[in-house]
C-alpha cells in the first residue's frame, strides 16, 4: 500500500461523496477492504432457496413477457457479419412473427464495428437515448480480455458512441484488480465513462463487466461491484460470456445486494446485468424472483435490469407459445438468428 505520495485518483462524483474529497488509492482500498465479508455457503443457500419459488399461471405469463423486455439480444462472435447483425435486429424488433403481441427486447448487443449496421437495421425502432424503442449496446475497451492500453480502450469506446451506441459494455482490468491496483481500475472506469460523453453532453449508459468468473471469490465480486459503482458505472454486469462460469444466481444475488445497499445509502438506483449461461425460461424466472425479492420489484425494468443472452429468447418464445396454444412446439417454430 502506498502511504507515501498517495496517487490522487481521477475525479468521480460518487466516490468523492462517499469517501470524501481526498480520494486516493489508499482511501479506496481501505473502503473496499472494509466491506462486510460474504459467506459463500450462506449466499449460495439463499440463491438456491430463491430458485425454489414456484411461478405459475398468470405470474408465469407476466414473467415471460418481462424477460423478453429485459433481454439484451446478443451476438459477440469473431465471425459476426453485417447480415448476422441485421438478422439479430429483425429478431429484436419482431421476436415472434407468429404473435405480434410479443414484446420487443430492450437492446441488441454487438461489437463496436457492428454498431453502424445495427443503427441502419433498426431505423425508426432505434431509441437514440429517448428510452422509447430498442437500444444498441456495444462492447468496448478491448472486450473481452481488456488487454489493451487505456488509449486504445477509450478510442474503442468513443468510436462506438460516435457510431450511435446507446450503451457501452466495458470490461474491467481484472489483472489490475486481482493484484490490488484498485485505483487503476477506478481510473479506467472514470475515463471510459468520460469517453461515453456524446457531443451534446449526454452520456451513453455505461455497463461495467466485472467478469466474475475470473474474480475467484465472492468478496472480490462485492469489492468490484462497489468499485464499479463508485467510479460511475450505471450498470454492473457479471460476465463477458467468454469465460466460464459466466452469470450464476449467487453472483447475481450478491450484486443485487450491493445495488440494494447503494440505493438504501444514497437513494440512487444502479442496474444489474447477468450475462452468459442463462438459456432457459426456468432459469430466467429464478433471476426475476431474485431481483424482486432482493432489490425490489421496481428493479424489473430495462433501465435497471437486463439479461445478456442469445438463446434464452427462443426458449421464452416457446414457453409463450405453450401458454397460448396449450401444447409445446419445437425449435422449428421459432426463428434462428
Amino acid at each position, binding site marked *: 500500500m502506498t502511504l507515501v505520495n498517495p496517487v490522487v485518483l481521477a475525479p468521480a462524483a460518487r466516490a468523492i461523496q462517499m469517501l470524501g474529497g481526498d480520494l486516493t488509492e489508499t482511501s479506496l482500498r481501505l473502503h473496499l477492504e472494509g466491506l462486510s465479508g460474504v459467506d459463500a455457503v450462506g449466499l449460495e443457500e439463499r440463491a438456491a432457496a430463491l430458485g425454489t419459488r414456484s411461478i405459475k399461471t398468470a405470474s408465469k405469463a407476466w414473467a415471460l413477457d418481462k424477460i423478453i423486455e429485459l433481454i439484451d439480444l446478443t451476438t459477440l462472435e469473431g465471425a459476426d457479419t453485417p447480415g448476422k447483425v441485421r438478422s439479430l435486429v429483425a429478431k429484436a424488433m419482431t421476436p415472434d412473427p407468429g404473435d405480434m403481441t410479443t414484446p420487443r427486447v430492450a437492446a441488441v448487443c454487438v461489437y463496436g464495428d457492428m454498431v453502424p449496421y445495427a443503427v441502419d437495421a433498426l431505423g425508426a425502432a432505434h431509441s437514440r437515448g429517448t428510452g422509447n424503442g430498442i437500444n444498441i449496446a456495444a462492447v468496448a475497451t478491448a472486450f473481452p480480455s481488456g488487454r489493451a492500453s487505456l488509449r486504445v480502450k477509450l478510442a474503442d469506446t468513443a468510436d462506438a458512441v460516435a457510431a450511435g451506441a446507446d450503451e457501452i459494455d466495458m470490461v474491467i482490468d481484472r489483472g489490475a484488480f486481482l493484484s490490488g491496483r484498485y485505483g487503476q481500475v477506478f481510473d479506467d472506469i472514470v475515463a471510459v465513462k468520460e469517453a461515453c460523453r456524446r457531443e451534446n453532453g449526454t452520456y451513453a449508459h455505461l455497463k461495467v463487466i466485472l467478469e466474475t468468473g475470473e474474480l475467484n471469490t465472492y468478496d472480490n465480486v462485492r469489492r468490484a461491484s462497489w468499485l464499479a459503482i463508485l467510479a460511475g458505472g450505471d450498470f454492473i454486469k457479471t460476465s463477458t460470456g467468454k469465460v466460464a462460469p459466466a452469470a450464476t444466481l449467487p453472483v447475481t444475488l450478491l450484486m443485487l445486494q450491493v445495488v440494494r445497499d447503494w440505493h438504501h445509502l444514497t437513494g440512487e438506483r444502479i442496474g444489474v446485468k447477468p450475462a452468459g449461461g442463462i438459456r432457459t425460461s426456468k432459469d430466467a424466472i429464478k433471476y426475476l424472483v431474485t431481483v424482486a*425479492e432482493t432489490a425490489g420489484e421496481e428493479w424489473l425494468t430495462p433501465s435497471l435490469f437486463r439479461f445478456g443472452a442469445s438463446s434464452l429468447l427462443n426458449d421464452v418464445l416457446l414457453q409463450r407459445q405453450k401458454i397460448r396454444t396449450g401444447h409445446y412446439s419445437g425449435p422449428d417454430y421459432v426463428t434462428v438468428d
Partner: protein
Amino acid sequence: MNFLEYAPAPESPSILHLRKEYGLFIDGEFVKGHGKPFATISPSSEKHIAQIANANAKDVDVAVAAARRAYDRTWSKLSGADRGKFLFRIARLVQERARELAVAESLDNGKPIKESRDVDVPLVAAWFFYYAGWADKLDYAGLGASPAALGVAAQVIPWNFPLLMLAWKIAPALAAGNTVVLKPAETTPLTALLFAEILQQAELPAGVVNILTGAGDTGAALVNHPDVNKVAFTGSTAVGRAIAKSTAGTGKKLTLELGGKAANIVFDDAPIDQAVEGIVNGIFFNQGHVCCAGSRLLVQENIHEEVVDRLKRRLSTLRLGDPLDKNTDIGAINSREQLDRIRELSDIGEAEGADRWTADCAIPENGFWFAPTIFDNVSTSSRIAREEIFGPVLSVLTFRTPAEAISKANNTPYGLSAGIWSDKGSKILAVADQLKAGVIWANTFNRFDPASPFGGYKESGYGREGGRHGLAAYLQTSIDAGASRTPVAARTTITKKVTK
C-alpha cells in the same frame, strides 16, 4: 400486475389417500383403541382431517407386550445386516412416498410445504439410511466390545417435526436392535400413521414398531410401563422433569431432548447479508416451533441498528399463508393453545417495555396464525428473553465485548444450541469453546445431519441423538456396564398379566 404477489402454487391434498379413522398400530396391524377417539385438524384452516384412536393404559400394555414379543422372538435374533436391510427398505419407501408425506405433514402440522418437502422428509430418509448403515457395524462404533440392545424402547415425540422426530427415535433404536413403542403428539399423529403403513409395506416383522396415538396420559402410561427398558422423550422441560423423576431407580435408560432459548451471536465482522438470513432461518424456520431456535439475537452494539433495520426489511418479504402453497415461507401455528401462549408472552414482552415490531402481512381468517415479530431493546431479565416462546418471536439484545456475549448467551437455564456469526475463524472457535450449548452453529443455523449428534446441557436435557452418540443411547455398552438392565422380575410379571 404485482409480480411479488405470486399466483397460487398449491400442492394438492388430493394426492393423499387418507382413511376417515385411524386405529392404533400394534403388532403390525391397525387396531381399535380403548380411549375416547379424538380428531386431528389442520391448523391452517381448522378443518377436520381424520378421527384418531386414543390409547389407554390397557392398549399400552398390549403394545409393550407386542414389542417385547417381537424383541424376544424376532428382532433380537436377526443379524445386524438383516436389520439394516429393513431400515434401508424403510428409507427408500420414505423417498418414494416423499411427496405424500410432505403434504400430510404440512396439512396436519401447518408448516410450509417447502420446509416439509425440502427439509423434514429428506432428513427422515437420511436418518434411516444413516442408521441402516450402522446396524451391522455396532462392534466398530467405538462403544466397546459387543454392545447389546436394551430391549423395548418407549418413545414420546413432539408436534413440531412430527415425522422427523419419529425418524430420530426409531432409526437408531431399530439399528441397535431394540423394538419400539412410539407415541406421536396429540395434534400431529398423521404422518406417524402413514409411516405405519410404510412399515407394513416394508414388511417389518410385526411388533417391532408399535405406534400409539393419544394425549399426555397415554405418554405417561407408556414411559412408566415396567416392561420398558429405554425411554426417549422430546418435548417440554416440565414433562421431561416428570419423566426423569418417575424413571429414576427403575433401571430404564433415559434420553431427554427438551426446551431451549438459544443465543444467536452476531459480531460486527459477520458476513452481514448471510447473518440476516441466518437470523431469519434461526427463529422463523417452522414458525419458531423449534427447540433449538435462535430466539435470542445477541448483536454487537455497533451494528445493532443496521442489523435490526436489515432484518425488518427482510422480514417484510416473508410470505405468510397456506402451508400447502409452495411459495409460503411462514405457515400456521400448530394449535390454539400454542398460539395463546405466544400471544401471552408477546404481550408480556410489550408490557415489560421491549419495542415490538411485527411484519405487515395479511392474516388468514381461519386457522392459527402469528405474524413474524421482533422485540428490540430487550433486557436480559425480561420474560421473553428467558422463557421459551416456541413461536415466531425474536428478542434482540446487544453486547459490547465477546466476554459479554458469552456471559449473556450462557445466562439461561437451557443449553441446547447457539449460533456465532463472524468472518474470523479464530474468534468463532474461541467463543464456541465457552458457550454452554450442545450444538453450536458457526455462520449457519438450524442445520441438521444424521451424522452429527444433537442434544443439550442443563434444562435442555441429556443424551444425544444422531451420529455414533445417538447409537449409544440405545445400546448397553461396556462403557456403562455398571448400570443394570431392566429388572427381570418386573418383566415376567408384566408378561403374565397381559393377555392378547
